[in-house]
């Protein structure tokens, strides 16, 4: 809701009644829609309700808004008369391979929670502007996730730490080196007994080797590692099953039946991009010949994996272990205790019918016992070596990170630590609350932190050293399956930062640049040309370990008892994970999957729980543990959430780490203790009165019409191949001529397959990166002014508490052949091209917004304010930025943004794609089918004297999509992929009865439920 919405209390029983007992399928987006509140009607009729009328404004503001800035653009003669003469500045020595105007692509790898994903970095004139997937990498295969797309914003983040800090004083690396070498020399005598290293998950062979060398130099020192949402449980599970830690990966391309036990494997696990592709390939009806795999999802929080499943059961996180035990019992692995519900018996039967082609995946949020049991289950089903692959451990360092951190805290508390070196981790913010790590940290003699942001941990350390971003450094990293990729920079470090390997080099007394360190490490493995080939392809050959045949040796573990009463479940936020991406504007503004909340976390609960507590969405409530800790935040009523549980996301409420991170949401870590890292009981939730406004996009840009989403089961598809609803209405006869233009060139169109779209939001972020889309902030999102050109709509089908279906639908400009937006523009700023594009000509637009008013799909976005320049977080300069002159360099203090607006904006300007116009205030924007890419390919084809090949033009959204749900191409060519998909029976157009003749078509979503299981 926006700031002026008067929130009436929703009657959940009435909503429930409206949803049950309906004949025919009803797709609903929000509770407000079903309740048909007055407020919702306003949002449906008017894109921006509660907008201010000009009559409300006072005279002064009126003049301010109406006074347009002088447009000097057309008056070239004014240059050098009263405007500065424009300069053009070439290089002094131009790099040989660079062609100004054409981007270069470099293969690299991004570390995501320790594991690497191969990417291609698009670089314009020496600055990286976009990240794409590396088609040759086993996980990425050319696609990316939202987090990978947003990582480029992090590199240009003005809040990143830029200088070495000693306490609150600016210092230099030279000063640090003097101090640290002195301390290390002293420690040598004690063989390093007082030294502790703390890292995050390390999957880089180079870093692991360097740490190993350090530990050889200081044998009494210890290496600890900590990740707030790491894979301790997976490691402990395999330890229990096999006596050693193995790396378990899944081959979903061979799986016909998949059971997921709280595993969000399509988005949140290492290898997710690969799993998403393989999973989608098993459901791509036109390719599989009508066959589909089947996914049973047991989950404790609605995820996109659950939305893509064929059967979904919501239950407490602590109850899922019981399901695992029942499945194991059904297979004869453990004695069955108690009655097994019918649906689980059917699931077991389905698994048994697919020996060797089934898969049971435990979620990382489940305790180790569940992982251990799943190893046994998969082995019993004959899946080992087929759908489940085991290999040697991929990451390095301590196996149990919680234990490791606890040991470190104990050592700190016993005053044993004289030198603590923290690489990247942020334990002051993310450590379990009972460890009281912040206090323990104070007891170390010298605390050194190496990280990208001056955050909560740096604040408590003696030294903070800035770390390079992966786009600025050399290194290596292993992917989810162990494949090694080299990390190569696309730009020299923007600030005075060094990479982890360089920092370790300093500590080892071998201060090599990261390039030299890497080259040295690969001297023998990649001699001569092989080094260049590895850098060019992004993958080091022969580093993928083959699967290992092993057998479960451990006894069946005891599943922990479920939490009685209300369960509080802690999960990492799908967007900002454990808080490390909290300062990313793109990720904060990206609507969270399913809830569509931006800029905040919430206390998620089921409708029945909300009714019981007398709460509804955006109420202010408090969660208190029986041991006294409490946190408060906004409530969110989530259909499909397990009944007797609440879920709260980690990563918010940060106190340091950048202007965006600070103050977004509420901190959940105070509730999380070492004994209850995943979930806890003994909690109460009560209303604090008042409201906590949440900016959610779920009711923004509603399409008022029918037949928006088509879905059905595989059985229904046989009887109704088009999945047409009963009230299907064909387009009426139009008085306009049928042909738009008489033109013999390509006609661009697009198809989106709802069956393979998982709603991961990679397309939304990729579009934002490619098209220079600005971040608008929470306040503007509340007014529906978010600028995302493509939005991910989410529809529920079924009852309020447990919707039977959740469907995702990405919607962008449909490029209608008979576009309603075109005839109404008074200045002709949106006209139709001969190739079928609905063009947006920014320089003509005067901002009447008539086009957006007329668009039935509500895909147009208006820049109400000057978002590209006026990033208000950089205008909140509270004091003059203190600077320090050291030698010939000038440094400014990092941390809370103290740089004046120009500095921050200049840095962010480097991120912009030079092929796309940066829009100011008063301009309408929308999806352009990536016209810059179309134009580029058209020109290249013309120069080479050939036609554009099918698949040559890839839009940003299409390129990012992990499941390849989006296909773009020439609809005039009957042999193109997009034409074939358009001709598919499942293909339909949005709001077809309006006769807009959109070029974007959708394929209906099909589920494959087990006919034996009653719905």
């Amino acid at each position, binding site marked *: 809701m926006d700031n002026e919405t008067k929130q009436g209390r929703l009657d959940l029983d009435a909503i429930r009644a409206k949803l049950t007992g309906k004949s025919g399928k009803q797709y609903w987006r929000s509770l407000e829609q079903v309740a048909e509140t007055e407020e919702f009607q306003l949002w449906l009729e008017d894109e921006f309700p509660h907008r201010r009328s000009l009559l409300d404004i006072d005279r002064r503001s009126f003049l301010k808004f109406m006074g347009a800035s002088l447009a000097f653009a057309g008056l070239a003669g004014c240059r050098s008369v009263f405007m500065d003469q424009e300069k053009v500045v070439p290089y002094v020595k131009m790099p040989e391979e660079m062609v100004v105007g054409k981007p270069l692509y470099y293969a690299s790898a991004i570390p995501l929670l320790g594991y690497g994903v191969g990417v291609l970095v698009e670089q314009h004139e020496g600055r990286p502007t976009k990240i794409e997937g590396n088609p040759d990498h086993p996980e990425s295969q050319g696609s990316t996730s939202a987090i990978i797309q947003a990582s480029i914003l992090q590199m240009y983040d003005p809040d990143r730490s830029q200088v070495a800090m000693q306490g609150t004083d600016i210092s230099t690396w030279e000063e640090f080196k003097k101090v640290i070498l002195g301390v290390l020399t002293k420690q040598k005598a004690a063989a390093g007994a007082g030294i502790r290293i703390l890292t995050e998950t390390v999957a880089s062979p180079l870093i692991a080797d360097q740490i190993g060398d350090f530990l050889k130099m200081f044998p009494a020192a210890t290496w600890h590692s900590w990740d707030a949402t790491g894979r301790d449980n997976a490691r402990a599970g395999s330890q229990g099953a096999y006596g050693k830690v193995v790396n378990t990966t899944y081959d979903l391309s061979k799986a016909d039946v998949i059971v997921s036990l709280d595993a969000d494997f399509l988005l949140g696990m290492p290898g997710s991009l690969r799993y998403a592709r393989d999973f989608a390939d098993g459901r791509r009806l036109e390719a599989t010949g009508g066959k589909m795999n089947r996914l049973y999802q047991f989950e404790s929080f609605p995820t996109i994996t659950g939305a893509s499943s064929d059967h979904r059961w919501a239950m407490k996180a602590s109850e899922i272990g019981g399901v695992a035990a029942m499945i194991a019992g059904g297979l004869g692995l453990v004695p069955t205790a108690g009655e097994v519900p019918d649906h689980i018996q059917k699931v077991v039967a389905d698994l048994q019918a697919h020996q060797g082609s089934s898969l049971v995946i435990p979620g990382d949020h489940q305790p180790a016992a569940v992982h251990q049991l799943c190893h046994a289950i998969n082995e019993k089903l004959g899946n080992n070596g087929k759908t489940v692959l085991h290999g040697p451990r991929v990451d390095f360092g301590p196996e149990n990170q919680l234990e490791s951190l606890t040991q470190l805290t104990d050592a700190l508390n016993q005053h044993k630590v004289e030198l603590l070196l923290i690489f990247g981790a942020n334990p002051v913010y993310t450590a379990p609350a009972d460890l009281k790590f912040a206090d323990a940290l104070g007891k170390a003699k010298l605390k050194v932190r190496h990280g990208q942001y001056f955050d909560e941990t740096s604040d408590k350390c003696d030294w903070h050293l800035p770390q390079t971003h992966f786009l600025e450094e050399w290194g290596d990293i292993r992917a989810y399956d162990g494949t090694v990729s080299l990390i190569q920079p696309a730009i020299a470090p923007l600030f005075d930062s060094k990479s982890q390997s360089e920092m370790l080099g300093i500590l080892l007394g071998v201060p090599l640049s990261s390039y030299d360190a890497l080259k040295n490490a690969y001297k023998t493995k990649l001699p001569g040309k092989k080094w260049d080939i590895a850098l060019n392809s992004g993958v080091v050959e022969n580093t993928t370990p083959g699967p290992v045949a092993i057998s479960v040796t451990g006894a069946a573990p005891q599943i922990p008892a479920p939490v009685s009463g209300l369960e509080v479940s802690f999960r990492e936020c799908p967007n900002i994970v454990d808080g490390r991406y909290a300062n990313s504007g793109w990720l904060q503004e990206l609507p969270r999957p399913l809830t569509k909340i931006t800029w905040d976390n919430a206390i998620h609960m089921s409708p029945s729980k909300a009714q019981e507590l007398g709460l509804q969405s955006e109420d202010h409530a408090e969660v208190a543990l029986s041991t006294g800790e409490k946190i408060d935040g906004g409530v969110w009523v989530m259909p499909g959430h397990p009944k007797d549980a609440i879920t709260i996301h980690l990563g918010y409420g940060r106190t340091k780490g950048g202007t965006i991170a600070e103050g977004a949401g509420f901190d959940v870590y105070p509730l999380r203790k070492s004994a209850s890292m995943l979930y806890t009981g003994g909690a109460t939730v009560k209303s604090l009165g008042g409201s906590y406004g949440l900016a959610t996009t779920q009711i923004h840009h509603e399409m008022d019409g029918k037949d928006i989403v088509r879905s059905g089961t595989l059985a229904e598809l046989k009887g109704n191949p088009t999945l047409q609803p009963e009230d299907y209405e064909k387009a009426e006869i139009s008085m306009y001529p049928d042909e738009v233009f008489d033109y013999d060139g390509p006609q661009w169109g697009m198809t989106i397959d709802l069956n393979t779209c998982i709603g991961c939001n990679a397309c939304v972020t990729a579009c934002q990166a490619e098209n220079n889309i600005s971040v608008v902030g929470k306040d503007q999102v509340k007014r529906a002014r978010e600028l995302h050109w493509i939005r991910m709509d989410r529809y529920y089908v079924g009852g309020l508490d447990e919707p039977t279906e959740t469907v995702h639908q990405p919607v962008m400009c449909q490029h209608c052949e008979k576009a309603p937006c075109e005839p109404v523009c008074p200045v002709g700023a949106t006209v139709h091209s001969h190739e079928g594009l609905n063009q947006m000509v920014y320089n003509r637009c005067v901002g009447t917004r008539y086009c957006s008013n007329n668009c039935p799909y509500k895909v147009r976005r208006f820049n109400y304010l000057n978002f590209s320049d006026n990033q208000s977080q950089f205008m909140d300069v509270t004091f003059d930025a203190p600077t320090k002159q050291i030698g010939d360099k000038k440094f400014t203090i990092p941390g809370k943004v103290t740089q004046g607006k120009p500095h921050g904006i200049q840095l962010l300007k480097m991120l912009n794609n030079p092929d796309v116009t940066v829009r100011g205030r008063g301009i309408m924007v929308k999806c352009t089918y990536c016209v810059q890419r179309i134009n580029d390919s058209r020109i290249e084809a*013309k120069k080479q004297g050939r036609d554009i090949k099918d698949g040559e033009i890839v839009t940003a959204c299409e390129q990012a999509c992990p499941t390849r749900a989006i296909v773009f191409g020439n609809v005039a060519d009957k042999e193109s992929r997009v034409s074939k998909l358009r001709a598919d029976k499942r293909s339909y157009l949005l709001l077809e009865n309006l006769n807009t003749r959109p070029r974007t078509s959708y394929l209906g979503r099909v589920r494959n439920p087990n006919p034996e299981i009653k719905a």
Partner: protein
Amino acid sequence: MPQIFKPAANNYARASLIAGALAPLLIGPAIAALSRSPANTKVQVPLNQPIPFSHQHHAWELGIDCRYCHTSVEKSSYAGLPPTETCMSCHSQIWTNSPLLEPIRQSYETGTPIKWNLVNKTPEFVYFNHSIHVDRGVNCNICHGPVQNMHITFKGNSFQMAWCLQCHRAPERYLYQDKDHPELTPRQQVFNLYWKYQAGDKLTLRESEILNGEWEGDDNTQDMKEGKDLLAKYGVKVQQLADCSVCHR
């Protein structure tokens, strides 16, 4: 009651009414003419540069091909401005002590690039691609004027949209083929014209007008017909050339 307005006020009123009616009729065309005049478009107004680079000396007298310096004109949207290294490729051996070339030597030694004054520019909302124009046979001089005659570089044409459209809407007015060398591709023909000029060959009227920057498109029926044939031969999709998104994206 005393009169507020003197009798002369009548004359003022009459005069201001007439002026008010005439003013738009005078000011309108005046502004239109002004905006099309060299005062605004800077056509044929030489622009001083930090180093007095002479195109006539380098391109005509020495015969250096345009692409020696403007290297990316056939590859990308941007024609390319030569880096200091390109200048030094000759001037490290020739005129090494000339005071006029001191800024270049300084730039090369200190690594500070030379800040040239921008002569040819389209507005920021225009995305112009050089490579496709060269590929289609649009000679450099057609847009940039008689560059090889310029001692001090000036803008060759107004680059106002109307000027671009007169070719984009009717490319047959500009397309031609060298009858002596019909085997040449349009791109080869662009540079072949310069070779002919350098060799002192006989040029057609059209060709010499192009080189002098006076060519404004052909309205001769026969030439237009030949132009149309060439359009068909090269597969130029004329209708699409005037689409907004071709230049404004």
